[in-house]
């Protein structure tokens, strides 16, 4: 018999376009699993995930991947950059398997790195960067496909206050450009920000509370 764990259950939430949403709760509460379900990285055993009113949770793997690539930008807790590659190469990763020309690919990466103040680091190998620089590289990678929704899992867990503020400022800026931000965190610095307009509190795999600020 397989050991099965129910990571999240009885979850029903709605995130609107342009929201700055926070999934908060202690470690093991199911935030990352929920983020993974929203971002089409895993499938629910029951229930549905609707993106723009389309159930994406039952799509064949190929289409699910396309939705993931075209709709979401991911920022992981450990950044998950590929060591040995340069900043620029890491940023271009999501668009390699597309029909974009190599010159356009490089231009897009350079533009985003410029925006994030990382253009002087583009030839650096990612393992030689500071924590903040690695995170900005991860943000640039999440943005290169111009996604409508940005998902971030514990993005400030390894950052000091200054870098955390810097990260949140970038996210705020993106929200103001019309993007939807969803952050899983248990860091008060994040969920106490005044521009966070949707709170979803989780515990033991269930939503214990949710509310809109504005």
């Amino acid at each position: 018999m397989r050991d099965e764990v129910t990571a999240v259950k009885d979850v029903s939430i709605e995130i609107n376009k342009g929201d700055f949403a926070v999934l908060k709760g202690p470690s093991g509460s199911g935030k990352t699993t929920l983020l993974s379900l929203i971002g089409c990285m895993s499938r629910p055993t029951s229930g549905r995930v609707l993106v723009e009113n389309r159930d994406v949770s039952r799509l064949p793997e190929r289409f699910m991947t396309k939705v993931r690539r075209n709709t979401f930008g991911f920022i992981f807790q450990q950044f998950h950059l590929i060591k040995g590659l340069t900043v620029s190469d890491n940023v271009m990763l999501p668009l390699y398997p597309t029909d974009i020309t190599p010159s356009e690919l490089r231009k897009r990466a350079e533009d985003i790195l410029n925006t994030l103040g990382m253009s002087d680091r583009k030839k650096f190998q990612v393992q030689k960067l500071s924590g903040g620089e690695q995170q900005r590289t991860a943000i640039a990678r999440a943005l290169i496909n111009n996604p409508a929704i940005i998902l971030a899992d514990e993005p400030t867990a390894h950052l000091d206050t200054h870098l955390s503020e810097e990260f949140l400022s970038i996210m705020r800026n993106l929200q103001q450009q019309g993007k939807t931000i969803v952050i899983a965190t248990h860091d008060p610095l994040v969920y106490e920000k005044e521009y966070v307009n949707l709170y979803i509190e989780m515990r033991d795999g269930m939503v214990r509370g949710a509310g809109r600020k504005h």
Partner: protein
Amino acid sequence: MAINKHKNILDYTLQSLLRRKFKNTGIILVFTFIIFAVSSIILLSYSLKKEAGMLLKYSPEIIVQKILAGRHELISTKIKNEIMGIPGVSKVEPRYWGYYYDSGVRANYTIIGIGVSGIENNRLIKGRMPSANEKNAAAIGREIADARIIKKDIGDSLNLQNSEGRWMEFKIVGIFESDSEILTADLIIISESAFKSLVGMPEDTATDLAVRVANETEIPTAARKIKELFPYSRPILRDEVIRTYDAVFGWRSGLILAMFAGALAAFIILAWDKATGLSAEEKQEIGILKAIGWETSDILEMKFWEGLVISLTSFMCGLILAYLHIFLLDGFLFAPALKGWSVIYPHFNLAPFIDFYQIAILMAITVLPYIASTIIPSWKASITDPDTVMRG
């Protein structure tokens, strides 16, 4: 056709390979050595067979030798006319040949005496063949020209000691060309009369008789009739000689290949082990790629390129090194085992023949399994949810 997509994936693959350059260089070196060793044996044995076959196609259809107590003896030339009487036989010629040991360079030469009809396949680098009535003229193989401390050229003298211990001086009038060196490298051709004087051969005898049969289908019948007429004789068919060469070189190359089969098996196990056990880092990388929007097919394409680049690079390097080893460096690593007698006979160069069929088989049993062993474990990792892979 998403050409850019494939170019992008290939570009990423090359960067990926460079990231693990020590590991990949190690695999390429081992892979290259295996291909080099096996290809060297294939090229060498095939070239030896082809070279022997190429030259033997000019040889007579039947050679008749006299056998005494199981050993090759001089044969009487008086039986020529009786053999000519056999239906189908168009020509019978006595042949005069033997070996001459040159103690100066510690090598055996093949020495041939030619009559008025000369010999066939007499292409020369330069000069000419000695005529039947020239007592002191010789054409020699290139290796004999090079083997002497003082290099020999046309117009120089070649001194050979006869059976009575006296020195005979020959003037070099021709040197054989190099594209058929297996037989001509160690060859000295002199006139029939000079040969008889040199070796002390009695009149009306020859080393053997060369019998020409115009119609291929009549060769076995003619050979049988010769044997019936002269029970002491041994008619040797040209096809039998070619088959013997094939068998000898095939057997020797088979032995060496068997030795390398162990190395090949070890490499396959190493490749399999490397490929089947993806490291945690590699699994995580696949998870990241999937999470950020790579499809399973994109990852498999990347792994395909990776396997292809490593295995094809190794294969081509191994093959080119083997070609240079065999045809430029005379196969110095394996030639002694394959040529066998070359330690005594003069050294010779091989004409470059390649058995594309065997090379294709070698490619199929090395490149394809390597690519498969690279793709299969990645496929297993890439069909799972990226979330699972990343957490695992």
